[in-house]
């Protein structure tokens, strides 16, 4: 008894660290995610089922024109869906719910910094998104003969940049959603635009050149391009750098928007 008490006192008596605070908040959020069936379906089931519908619509000539195999096409779609559903859409809902429940306001009275609150809240969703990406890659390799990636570092870079951007854009979208119901609607534009215009379900090569080069500037496009290029190895260093720079620019823009517009408590 006394030994246990001593240990508790010494471990809890110290000052907190950013990592410790993030872990504590992330753990609580993971518990909450596990208790919400709706969130689990959005985060885990949908991203794994939707790529199958893409398989039906993708025509052979479309793939040929883009120089893609069914494997790389499904992989890109699966990773895109993981980002949009497991990370972005889930986080818009979570941020709005926590704000409306006054959880964010309460957290802000403690030692957590603002960015730690946003990051810690996002932690479980981001980790699930990353895990989905791994599952998608393994499934595509095993089921539709996806070959090994030629430039895996680019794929990893793409997934990481995409995840960070989805977290930041989730917070931005939450800032403009007043209720959990309106969050369902306000997250749709980015999801639709990304599915069609970011090379997830339709390769950008099928669009006219001028349109395609505009679509390459959409938020999720650089991540998709890096993932695809990471597998095909057909992305030049120059192109990879351009895609990474576009993604970073979006992240900076989103971070600025969060600092400018994010609300920590409900409107009165």
């Amino acid at each position, binding site marked *: 008894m006394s030994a246990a008490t001593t240990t*508790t*006192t010494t471990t*809890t*008596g*110290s*000052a*907190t660290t950013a990592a*410790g*605070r993030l*872990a*504590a*908040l992330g*753990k*609580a959020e993971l*518990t*909450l995610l596990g*208790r*919400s069936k709706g969130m689990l379906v959005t985060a885990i089931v949908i991203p794994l089922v939707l790529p199958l519908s893409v398989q039906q619509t993708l025509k052979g000539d479309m793939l040929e024109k883009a120089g893609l195999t069914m494997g790389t096409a499904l992989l890109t779609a699966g990773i895109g869906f993981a980002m949009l559903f497991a990370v972005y859409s889930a986080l818009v809902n979570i941020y709005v719910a*926590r704000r409306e*429940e*006054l*959880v*964010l*306001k*309460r*957290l*802000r*009275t*403690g*030692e*957590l*910094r603002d960015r730690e609150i946003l990051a810690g809240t996002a932690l479980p969703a981001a980790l699930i998104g990353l895990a989905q990406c791994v599952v998608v890659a393994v499934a595509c390799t095993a089921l539709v003969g996806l070959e090994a990636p030629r430039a895996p570092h680019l794929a990893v870079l793409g997934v990481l940049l995409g995840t960070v951007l989805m977290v930041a854009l989730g917070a931005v979208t939450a800032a403009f959603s007043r209720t959990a119901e309106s969050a369902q609607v306000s997250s749709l534009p980015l999801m639709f635009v990304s599915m069609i215009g970011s090379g997830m379900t339709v390769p950008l090569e099928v669009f006219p050149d001028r349109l395609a080069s505009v679509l390459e500037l959409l938020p999720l496009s650089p991540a998709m391009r890096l993932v695809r290029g990471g597998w095909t190895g057909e992305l030049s260093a120059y192109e990879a750098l351009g895609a990474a720079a576009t993604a970073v620019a979006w992240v900076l823009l989103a971070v600025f928007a969060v600092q400018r517009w994010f609300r920590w408590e409900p409107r009165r």
Partner: protein
Amino acid sequence: MHAHDSAHCRPTAGREILDHMNTDDHVIEVTDLRRVYGGGFEAVRGISFAVGRGELFALLGTNGAGKTSTVELLEGLARPTAGRVRVLGHDPYAERGLVRPRIGVMLQEGGFPSELTVGEAVRMWAGCTSGSRPTGEALELVGLGHRARVRIKQLSGGEKRRLDLALALLGRPDVLFLDEPTTGLDAEGRVETWELVRALRASGTTVLLTTHYLEEAESLADRLAIMHAGQLAASGTPAEVTAAQPSQITFQLPEGYHLGDLPPLGALGVTAHETEGRTVKLRTDVLQQAATQLLLWARDAGVELRGLDVRSASLEEAFLRIARDVKQEARDAREAGDKEKVA
């Protein structure tokens, strides 16, 4: 109804407190603080006060007086529009990292994820709090030890307030901010919370609490300030604030008598009077003298003063009068402004 008043409280009272206390001992210092919201509403209009180490200071006011707007600035949740706040010698907004580990905060409306259990919420908060108490100890403090496994959504309103208090106490804070800690509690819960707050104060914690319960401020506070319409209308110890208000004598004037039949009011020591029908209300700073003279007059005149009520000033009386005075001043100012426009 008509009232003549001589005793007004000025919103500069906070300054005097600053002057007569040793500045080194100030845990909270507020100088000319203003807070204007986005829509242009000025919730806090230039207030100043200081709270000494180990002191329990109550900010008293009606709903909408600006208490929460003020406390949020002290907690570092927002930047003041103008003026200065220091908590433990630091700016609570800009130097959040230095201040937060040493303060505990209980918001007027705390938020917790409803699907977490009480124990999970405390453990999460403990992971974000330097020098945290063990979970069980924190819950025992507020009498929630047996509720650790219950989901927060199943707690009563009072239990949620107590969970909020447990989290505020988790880091054994030097300074505790309690925004209406007993609102929503039943009588028993309120008394328990008062006892806990007294014990914390006895152990050296500086406490700033807001309340609209007068008896709460009167029984807990070393010093208090009455806030109204964004300003401090009065401040001091509960006894000082009360003493600054006149005492009161009320009675029914017997049939056939007029106010002029009484002894001269000035000679009685009456500073203001009101009449409403046959009811006479006299205000005085020398209650015993005024009451004695009045009763002697009644005996000599052979009349009975029905409904006789002689009472010393109470905090409640002070509170209501301040609210009314400030309203009257605002009306006067508005009328003066209208006249200027006409001219």
